[in-house]
């Protein structure tokens, strides 16, 4: 055991995907000023920040998540802005609450950008190796055991390795206060192409095999999910010009407020011009009756239908075989051909995720217009992986069972880079808080952020499929907009300590500047009449936009961000006023905490259904309890009485 506890890190992040890097980034933001250290362990450091599926970030609801991560000093928005090759603001024909920024990225540059950003962090060590097990002591995380040769990869911006001791090959143990575990699709990952199965979480990579057993032995209830990815084609073999193009926005919208400004921190000079990379267009093609017939003939070879796959896949992202079976009346489905990089000629076939055998995939692709001669560079595949059922989590990302163990990303049953990154942010914040001696119970409210909606959903509902964010999940959708993400969250992030670096300080300055511009504009609106009517009334009209407002207030200094937010606030004012009143009235119950350790099954006055829901989910607050299926408001009242009487009965509690 000479190697045991050779190294101590305050937080160890396992996994270098979108959850892991955001967790590590948040930890650095919080811990570097305190001189505390973070480690990121990955099986292959060159794969950090890789986009395993569609190289796109954002979209409806997901775009809001990225804006929120960015407002909290996160990494994803900056990396996207620096590497986007097509930007589109979705849903612009509808109101601002449901606008969704989306960008396609150069997948190679995105991953490199993320790696470069991590390399700027003084307090971060990236360690290559594969985690064998988690070491716990009396219900708390104590260390992480790494099985194979581990080496320091990114020692810090100054280029000097501070952690040379890890360079020795062989098993090592890293002691730590907190672990953020982000396994993605790698935990007992099993890939399927037709009848061919191979262990691994991603094409040409291996699986993480030890962790599942380790989690099971710690008492966690595991589940199994399935996801899939479409074939990739070689661009030069597609009759590209014959297909209908889809362009990005003429005026692209960046994700990060920092990108939109002209003066940047010197660490990120390339953001001074936006967009940074030359922009590309996508092309559209379609499936056909003949293709659908071909799929039906070969359905018995599809792992989803042959019984070979046991994991549950998402209904909102069906494989092509699913589409053909479930929507048998459709003759055709659209397929978007999306370039994956400026550096290679890989094309992503958005819309035909499949795990049919390779020869069937070949036939399908070649039956699509423009793809008659297309070469498949990588066949589509399905991947099954283990997850931890998320009712075992606290809303702050820590497991209820093991103190100091945080989970983020697909391990919690979610899908999507943005969902993963948002959980990484929350887990990173709380892991760092724990390491720094604060309670790891920070949460965003459902009325504060989509991130809060997601975490609350995860810990109060039983997911039927991989969880993806939709705007309809947010009951306060009109409040939670992409345009006001910084207004909602930047002060909060500042008070948590996430914005202590130079970039963070810049965010706080921008927040204050926007607030004063908004106040000034609101004043101007309230005292101005336009075309004989109070401006305040005029601007509620549907068609009234920022350009109209500029015409009405020609002398006011223009600032797009502030003006858009003011206009949106005014537009939704009546709803928002009502919702805020409702939020205030429920705030008392919403945030009141329920002590852990209640033996719900022994309570006499609760209905069986309520007891079972409480027993399984062990909610942290009365707000969470009220959202469990099977709970009535009266059950919540009874619970309140029980909790109060227990507290009064045990003076030291």
């Amino acid at each position: 055991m000479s190697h045991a506890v050779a190294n101590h890190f305050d937080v160890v992040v396992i996994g270098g995907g979108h959850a892991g890097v955001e967790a590590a980034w948040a930890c650095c933001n919080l811990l570097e000023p305190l001189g505390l250290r973070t480690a990121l362990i990955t099986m292959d450091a060159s794969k950090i920040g890789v986009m395993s599926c569609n190289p796109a970030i954002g979209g409806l609801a997901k775009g809001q998540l990225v804006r929120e991560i960015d407002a909290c000093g996160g990494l994803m928005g900056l990396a996207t802005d620096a590497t986007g090759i097509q930007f589109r603001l979705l849903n612009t024909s509808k109101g601002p609450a449901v606008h969704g920024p989306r960008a396609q990225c150069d997948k190679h540059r995105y991953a490199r950008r993320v790696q470069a950003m991590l390399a700027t962090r003084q307090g971060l060590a990236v360690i290559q190796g594969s985690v064998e097990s988690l070491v716990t002591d009396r219900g708390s995380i104590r260390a992480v055991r790494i099985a194979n040769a581990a080496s320091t990869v990114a020692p810090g911006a100054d280029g000097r390795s501070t952690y040379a001791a890890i360079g020795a090959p062989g098993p090592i143990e890293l002691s730590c206060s907190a672990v953020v575990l982000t396994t993605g699709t790698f935990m007992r990952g099993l890939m399927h192409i037709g009848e061919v199965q191979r262990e691994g979480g991603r094409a040409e990579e291996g699986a993480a095999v030890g962790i599942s057993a380790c989690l099971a032995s710690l008492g966690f209830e595991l589940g199994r999910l399935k996801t899939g990815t479409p074939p990739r084609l070689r661009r030069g073999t597609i009759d590209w010009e014959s297909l209908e193009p889809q362009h990005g926005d003429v005026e692209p919208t960046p994700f990060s407020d920092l990108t939109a400004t002209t003066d940047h921190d010197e660490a990120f000079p390339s953001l001074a011009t936006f967009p940074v990379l030359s922009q590309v267009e996508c092309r559209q093609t379609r499936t056909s009756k003949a293709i659908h017939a071909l799929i039906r003939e070969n359905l018995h070879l599809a792992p989803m239908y042959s019984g070979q796959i046991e994991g549950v896949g998402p209904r909102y992202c069906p494989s092509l075989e699913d589409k053909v079976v479930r929507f048998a009346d459709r003759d055709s489905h659209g397929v978007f051909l999306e370039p994956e990089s400026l550096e290679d000629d890989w094309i992503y076939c958005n819309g035909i995720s499949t795990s049919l055998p390779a020869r069937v995939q070949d036939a399908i692709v070649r039956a699509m217009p423009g793809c008659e001669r297309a070469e498949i560079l990588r066949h589509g595949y399905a991947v099954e992986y283990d997850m931890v059922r998320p009712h075992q989590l606290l809303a702050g990302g820590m497991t209820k069972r093991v103190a100091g163990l945080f989970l983020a990303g697909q391990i919690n049953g979610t899908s999507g880079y943005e969902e993963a990154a948002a959980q990484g942010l929350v887990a990173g914040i709380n892991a760092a808080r724990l390491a720094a001696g604060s309670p790891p119970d920070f949460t965003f409210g459902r009325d504060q952020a989509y991130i809060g909606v997601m975490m609350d959903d995860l810990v109060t509902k039983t997911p039927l499929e991989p969880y993806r964010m939709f705007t309809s999940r947010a009951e306060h959708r009109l409040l939670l907009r992409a345009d006001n993400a910084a207004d909602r969250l930047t002060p909060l992030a500042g008070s948590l300590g996430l914005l202590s670096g130079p970039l963070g300080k810049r965010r706080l300055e921008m927040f204050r500047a926007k607030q004063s511009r908004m106040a000034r504009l609101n004043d101007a609106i309230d005292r101005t009449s336009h075309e004989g009517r109070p401006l305040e009334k005029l601007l509620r009209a549907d068609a009234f936009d920022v350009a109209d407002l500029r015409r009405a207030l020609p002398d006011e200094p223009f600032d797009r961000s502030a003006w858009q937010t003011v206009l949106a606030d005014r537009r939704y004012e009546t709803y928002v006023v009502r919702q805020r009143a409702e939020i205030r009235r429920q705030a008392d119950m919403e945030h009141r905490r329920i002590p852990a350790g209640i033996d719900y099954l022994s309570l006499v006055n609760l209905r069986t259904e309520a007891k079972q829901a409480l027993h399984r989910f062990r909610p942290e607050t009365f707000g969470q309890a009220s959202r469990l299926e099977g709970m009535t408001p009266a059950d919540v009242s009874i619970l309140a009485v029980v909790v109060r009487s227990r507290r009064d009965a045990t003076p030291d509690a």
Partner: protein
Amino acid sequence: MAGDRAGRDSARPPERDTIIARSSPPGDSTRALIRASGPLALGLVHPHASGRGVSSALVTIPGACAMLELPVIAMAMPGPASFTGEDVLEVLVAGRTHLVERIIDAWTARPGCRRAGPGEFSARAFLAGRMTLAQAEGVAAAIAAENEEELEAAAGLREGRAGRRHAALATELAELLAMVEAGIDFTDQEDVVAIGGAELSRRLDALLGVMHELGAAPGDAATIVATPRVAIVGAPNAGKSTLFNALLGRERSVVSEVAGTTRDAIEELLSLNEARPGAGEVMLVDSAGLDDELARRSGELERVAQDAATAAVAMADVALWCDPTGRFEAVTLPDAARAALSRLGAGRVLRVRTCADRGGATANDGLSVCALDGFGLSRLLRAVADAAVTGRGRRGLAALLPRHRAALERCAASLRQARELAREAADPSRLDRPEEAAQTLRDALDAAGELSGRIGVEEILGRVFASFCVGK
């Protein structure tokens, strides 16, 4: 690192709803007591009142055509020295149920006020430290009991015809919301055709029409609550209508030798004061004969009649189960009616052997009556009066119906708002403000959910995924 809730709107103290409910037993009486607790309680009668004390006042409420002024006695108890620890107002009013309900309606229409849920006063009292620890168990049990009664009453309502119409309403609303949400969240999917303003407004018109009918269903909810309902049930041609007429002392129901003559439920007020002085009135309900076979295989018309009859039992406080044979075999009744009878319990199901004049089997555990010569009628009336007194104490329906009515009204108001938005669309094949329409539809669905069970986002998304091929 900073506090947990940093940045949250913490400057303002948490506001709480002011909860209001009738706290005297349901039904007409000389005086009724309304109780209110919460920050707005003291201002309900006197807008600027703040001190402790008893006062008389006039309460103004909207009447059928003009404002009504009702004399009340108000007792103000400012917190924390009150029952709940909050500001509490207790108001004595004349005990006519419809007036009591109208006052509560008027007050709960104010922002920040609502009707109290089961056991809510007790829960607030306990949480404010106004009860001892020893009382906690009792408080929890009391809330549980009230909850149980309301859940039972709700289950009963859901089984009835009105319940099914509420469920149909909620389903249509969920469908509409799903179509609007599909147009918001899946707009980039080629397969999703968003619902247009014209279509949405047409379907909302239809929904509002249905809701109008629901609201105008026989008997104002307040009356339904106030007066114990006595349903005459039994197989077709068991002599129910004959008994109904005999008890009323006049011809109201069409009596015929042909089984199944009574299709719609017929209701009449019946005074029991002669049989038992002070017993008051009950609502006597005659409905179609219940028959399991008929309910299963007959045509639309018969099924409607069976539904109405089953609903009558589900809503009843007392049932007169008529059987000329005296055998009272539950197996002949449809499942829902049987369940409703067993919910009422033995004390409130009176077994009546009708047509005693026909002789035959002797009634061993039933009351024998002959409607033709009045044999046994006054004994039956006394039994009804006794059973009705037991029924009157039940809170379930009494608490549920006014809340349901308020929920229906909120639902309708939100639907009208959604219809406005749908009509505003410049291009009728589109919806200009789908996120606002969705907000109002969601409010409406939440209100409808109070009647028919909560419908959550997962179900809405399920409908979207079932109707559209999403995921490109």
